[in-house]
């Protein structure tokens, strides 16, 4: 009887492991999506690069001017879960992504999967990049290959034990990784559609401007309402149209702030928003106007005081 029970418990445990393994398995992009991945357009790729803000994390801390195109990584992100170090994403063969295929790049960007099949931590904002168009990913890939290789090895993230087990991220992804749009808009308005694409996709504004729950997923009910800074001191501003957010700002105030870094009171952006704004300034004016238009139609949510 006891033997039978032990056997049963053993089978149950194995089954549990099997279910966990199944649920946490990487779920790559379908191959038919990737047919054009190696034929991207470098010129548009450069714009996608700035929209995506890659250099803000992958260039070294405090990089200025052309240094922002040296994406050797090692930039620390101090989060409540531990310290993440951005990896080298230059075409360097050993230390960068020089040996990758376009399909591997697309799976990293849109599914958070490394070439070896392991899960990336969502400090890499693939939950936003998942909403990008595959053509933009192809163009970005073409542009990435034009960047200068940097010979700098990756640093190990500094995380407490439970978070060191990447396999479990598969479960996290079933909760938080999908490509449905977040905000309903008038689908016939191309400007709003462009604004939504940029904000919810490549520009990943929600990664900082939306508060997160206990396990690090974005709280969509407070989309863009600001909250505690994901790293360091202070908090992140509410950019919804609520009066405690961007309510008093006009469309041109928002677009101009992204172009120049100045608020309507001629205060200037601080902290990590400076490098975000420098990227936004590289986009066509129509993109900054589209972002402004979108920010005016998202739900107005009051700022939650910490």
């Amino acid at each position, binding site marked *: 009887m006891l033997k039978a029970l032990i056997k049963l418990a053993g089978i149950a445990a194995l089954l549990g492991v099997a279910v966990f393994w199944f649920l946490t398995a990487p779920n790559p992009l379908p191959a038919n999506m990737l047919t054009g991945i190696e034929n991207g357009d470098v010129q548009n790729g450069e714009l996608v690069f700035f929209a995506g803000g890659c250099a803000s994390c992958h260039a070294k801390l*405090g990089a200025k001017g052309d240094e922002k195109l040296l994406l050797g990584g090692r930039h620390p992100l101090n989060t409540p879960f531990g310290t993440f170090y951005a990896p080298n994403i230059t075409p360097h063969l050993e230390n960068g992504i020089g040996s990758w295929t376009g399909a591997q790049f697309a799976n990293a960007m849109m599914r958070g999967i490394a070439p070896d099949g392991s899960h990336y931590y969502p400090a890499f904002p693939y939950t936003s990049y998942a909403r990008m168009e595959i053509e933009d990913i192809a163009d970005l890939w073409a542009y990435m290959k034009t960047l200068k290789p940097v010979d700098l090895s990756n640093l190990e993230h500094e995380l407490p034990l439970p978070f060191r087990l990447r396999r479990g991220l598969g479960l996290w992804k079933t909760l938080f990784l999908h490509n449905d749009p977040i905000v309903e808009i008038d689908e016939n308005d191309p400007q709003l559609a462009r604004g939504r694409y940029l904000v919810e996709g490549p520009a990943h504004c929600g990664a900082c401007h939306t508060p997160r729950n206990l396990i690090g997923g974005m709280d969509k009910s407070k989309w863009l309402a*600001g909250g505690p*800074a994901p790293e*360091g*001191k*202070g*908090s*992140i*501003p509410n950019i919804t149209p609520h009066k405690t957010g961007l309510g008093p700002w006009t469309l041109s105030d928002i677009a101009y702030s992204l172009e*120049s*870094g*100045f608020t309507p*009171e*001629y*205060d*200037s*952006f*601080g*902290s*990590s*928003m*400076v*490098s975000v*704004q*420098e990227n936004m300034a590289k986009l066509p004016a129509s993109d900054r106007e589209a972002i402004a238009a979108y920010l005016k139609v998202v739900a107005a949510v009051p700022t939650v005081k910490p």
Partner: protein
Amino acid sequence: MRKVILGTIAACIFAGTAVYAEPIADRKAAMKNVGMAMGSLVKMVKEQMDYDPNVALLSFAVMNNASIGITSLFPEGTEMGIDTTAGPKIWEDMAGFNTAMVKFQADTAAAIAAKPADLDAFKAVFGPVAANCAACHKVYRLSQP
């Protein structure tokens, strides 16, 4: 009468210390003035307002004035309080913060010395002055308290 005098003295001391003990409010007011001056300059750059050399000089002077001695308004112990957006980096790297303010002072002084007579001359000195805002805020300022 005695009470009134004592009260007045107490009020004076309180008012005195209140002014002296509010470096956070003072530095905020100084930066707010810089922002107002910036507003006038940007309106001229964007040609929403005709270029006026006197407005340009006055605005640069307001900025230059704010930069003088402002670093003394960041004493130890004022890292927190009344919604300050001063970043912790100021106290970790006071020397670097001082250097940034000295640069701001030098750039605004150079703009004043240049006495820009027309819009093009003005734009040439405006750029280097304006670049100070983001360069310093990026490192030494929080986005929001």
